[in-house]
């Protein structure tokens, strides 16, 4: 018994390797990239060297705009996530718990889901203009569906044996929801949110390229206009790092909320 946890704990050298391994490939790539750039094998107009990208990062941070742009982007993504996520959650619980509501709502929702959110961009611009609302709207509507689908699935896949047991043990409807259905659906709901988090980053860049005056997408557009290759690459690198950060945070939250799930209690590679 004593689970896989203790077996892994007994191998500290394995742990070190596991922590370092994911960084080896990107690190090697960056080193190779820098060397090739220095050897003038990559023209700087095509792809600037890592060090000059770093210099651009320092410059942008010192001028004070980078943090602000990042903050604006994060706020948009987060706002969209909260709004869209809440709608998805409510809809998922409604259709998951009630057959009539499922009949009523699931069909139309699946139809709306089939429409790519980005196809709505022109419409959204006409409705809401180019301001914040339009960007948050695009993110929100994208995020609704992964959260909705996973919540619905989670609620429906709660073990019917447990519900039956709760009935025999005089657990009332409120307690049934609080102690059986919600925790039973939670792993699936969190999968939905993690997926939504990734998606929200993804549609953000599109939302921000439609006439924004701040945000990461704006920096990228601006850099393209002025042929600032280092800034352009910087935004891409930032995108990758922030995406990773969001994922790590989501895992942390998962592990904190689901301490009972054996698959999360293993030392997984963060």
């Amino acid at each position, binding site marked *: 018994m004593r689970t896989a946890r203790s077996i892994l704990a007994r191998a500290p050298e394995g742990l070190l390797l596991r922590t370092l391994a994911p960084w080896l490939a990107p690190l090697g790539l960056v080193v190779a990239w820098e060397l090739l750039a220095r050897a003038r094998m990559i023209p700087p107009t095509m792809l600037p060297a890592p060090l000059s990208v770093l210099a651009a990062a320092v410059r942008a941070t010192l001028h004070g705009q980078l943090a602000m742009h990042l903050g604006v982007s994060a706020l948009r993504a987060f706002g969209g996530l909260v709004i869209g996520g809440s709608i998805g959650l409510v809809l998922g619980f409604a259709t998951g718990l009630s057959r009539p509501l499922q009949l009523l709502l699931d069909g139309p929702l699946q139809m709306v889901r089939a429409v790519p959110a980005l196809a709505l961009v022109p419409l959204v611009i006409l409705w809401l203009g180019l301001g914040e609302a339009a960007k948050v709207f695009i993110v929100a509507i994208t995020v609704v569906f992964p959260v909705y689908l996973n919540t619905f699935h989670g609620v429906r896949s709660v073990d019917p044996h447990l519900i039956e047991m*709760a009935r025999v043990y005089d657990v009332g409807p409120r307690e049934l929801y609080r102690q059986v259905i919600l925790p039973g659906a939670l792993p699936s709901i969190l999968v939905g949110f993690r997926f939504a988090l990734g998606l929200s980053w993804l549609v953000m860049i599109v939302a921000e390229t439609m006439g924004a005056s701040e945000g990461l997408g704006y920096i990228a557009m601006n850099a393209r206009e002025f042929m600032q290759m280092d800034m352009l690459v910087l935004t891409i690198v930032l995108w990758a790092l922030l995406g990773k950060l969001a994922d790590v945070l989501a895992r942390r939250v998962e592990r904190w909320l689901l301490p009972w799930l054996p698959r999360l209690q293993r030392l997984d590679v963060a």
Partner: protein
Amino acid sequence: MSPTAHRASGATVRLQNVYKEFGDRQVLRGIDLEVPPGKFLAIVGRSGSGKSTVLRLLCGLDDPTRGSTSVVDPSGNDVRGSVRVVFQEPRLLPWRSVLSNVSLGARRTSNHRAREVLGGVGLADRLHEYPGVLSGGERQRVALARALVHEPAVMLLDEPFAALDALTRIGAQRLVESLWMQHGFTALLVTHDVEEAVLLGDYVVVLDEGRVIERVEVNLTRPRARERPEIRRLTARLLDAILSTPRQAPPAVQSPDPSCKRDFSEFAQAGAEERDGFRLFIHEPCEEEGT
């Protein structure tokens, strides 16, 4: 200890002319049963004989199509709310600790009481574990504790040992017997293990095709040793009763433990060979295998 030695806080369980249909499938066809307070009834039968349905009617998960069921204490009060069930699967909430699983739905039970009962099933040191790290036998003991914490008048046991390995099963059977003697509830055990029924039941009834085809009162002191000739003779007689009924559908009796094949077809074959000697105990080597 004699079966009457325990304190009689149990209830009388009665089924009167009970019929149950699921769609056009007749599961129970006129069941009449009465279990006096504090007694132990074992119900055996093939899969699909309707034995689990009897329990589902008693705990309110299903309603009889015709006939009536009642659970009354010795002073005549309806104590249907004091019926607790232990299922074949432990059905624990994986996201709650052992302790809070036992306190489930027990508004009035204190933590202290839950600890006490868990101590009684030998799990005092595992209170804060999640069910996921427990063994099958330990989980089933948590399920037992969860039922006991309510001081039930009636305990329904729906093949609670079927998924356990042979050794764990023997331990669990003894535990249930001693808890029953200690707490004095009325027990209804559904099983497809005839020997288990004979070892534990004050009464054993055989169900087939939704009818009671055999009733036996077992007047033997407890704990009963499985080697006793009376136990063996009775087991053989009841097996005979089960096997002599015409079989319509092929038997779907499966043993969850593949190392211990207690398939009735196997019994039937051996029975045909050894009927003269009246020894039908081919499941015995299987038990020794686990020893």
